[in-house]
């Protein structure tokens, strides 16, 4: 193995993250290469020096600030979440839906009346025509309009009088 290839393996070797075959290869190279041996020692020293830096603790207010940021977040609520929170509303909505389906389903045959058939409807209208004509004649009969209003019966009149 060349010194250049050591570059990609030297840290892995120090960390103990190399595969067994790679590790043996590195060790074989180190046995005959003094500069690489020195570099491994120096990298090990750098790693040790980095460990000397102390760990800092977050300030006591840290959690509180995170809580405040999270609490200030707008609550995203979909319809489903709202229904989940309001079981009565969810129940009422489902009942309404069932009622709508039931009405739609069972009222359908009733709407299949003979009137929906144009031929039957025409026949029925022809049969009813004399009645309609009589109604038209009576409602437009001028002498009938001139008649005085109907006289209310006496009993009704006596009930309306104050005691």
């Amino acid at each position, binding site marked *: 193995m060349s010194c250049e290839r050591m*570059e*990609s393996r*030297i*840290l*892995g070797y120090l960390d103990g*993250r190399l595969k067994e075959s790679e590790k043996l290869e590195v060790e074989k190279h180190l046995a005959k290469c003094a500069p690489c041996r*020195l*570099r491994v*020692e*120096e*990298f*090990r*020293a*750098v*790693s*040790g*020096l*980095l*460990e*000397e*830096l*102390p*760990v*800092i*603790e*977050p*300030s006591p207010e*840290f*959690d509180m*600030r*995170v809580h405040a*940021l*999270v609490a200030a*977040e707008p609550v*995203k609520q979909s319809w489903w979440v709202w229904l989940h929170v309001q079981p009565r509303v969810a129940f009422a909505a489902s009942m309404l839906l069932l009622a709508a389906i039931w009405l739609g389903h069972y009222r359908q045959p009733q709407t299949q009346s003979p009137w929906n058939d144009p031929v039957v409807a025409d026949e029925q209208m022809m049969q009813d025509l004399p009645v309609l004509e009589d109604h038209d004649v009576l409602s437009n009969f001028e002498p009938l309009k001139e008649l005085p209003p109907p006289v209310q019966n006496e009993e009704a009149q006596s009930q309306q009088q104050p005691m």
Partner: protein
Amino acid sequence: MARTDVQLMLDVKAGDEASFELLLHRYRTPLVNFLYRMVRNREQAEDLAQEVFLRVYRAREDYVPSAKFTTWLFRIATNLALNSVRDTRYRKLEISIDAPITTDAEDGDERPLDVPEKRPNIEQHLVEDARRKMIRHAIDKLPEKQRAAVLLHKYQELDYAEIAKILACSESALKSLLFRAYEALRVELAPLVAQQVRNQG
């Protein structure tokens, strides 16, 4: 048995706020430390870490566990940090190119956890302080992407495939990035490295 990050995130998606709290507790310290070492300002690091958690919360409804949770989390953090570093650099250039730039760390902002209360002597304290300062400066001098790679590799102990995904590069490109970063650190910290090698030998 503790729930995995993905399980917790799926619970958050289902509306469980307590799972979000667990994720917050699990990752606030690693995130703040990562961001602090990226941006070199404690307050800014905390603001960015809070923004990361807010983005996680906002994305809960669309969360699909297609990758490891840490990959997703640190990808958000890295992008925020890189943008922040670039913005800050631009602002500093705008203000003055002559004024000396001091960092929080130089002002003694860092509060180490592992420092014993009673120090053997003041001299040792000064030596330790100087070493830390050198190490911090060496990390600060790395280009942002190399810095992010080193921090994710060294402090978060993420594997190469994960870091490559976070930095949107191939695994071989990441190995090259890390090698160059360690080379730069080796040169920058030469006196400390030589001392360390002597001690190891």
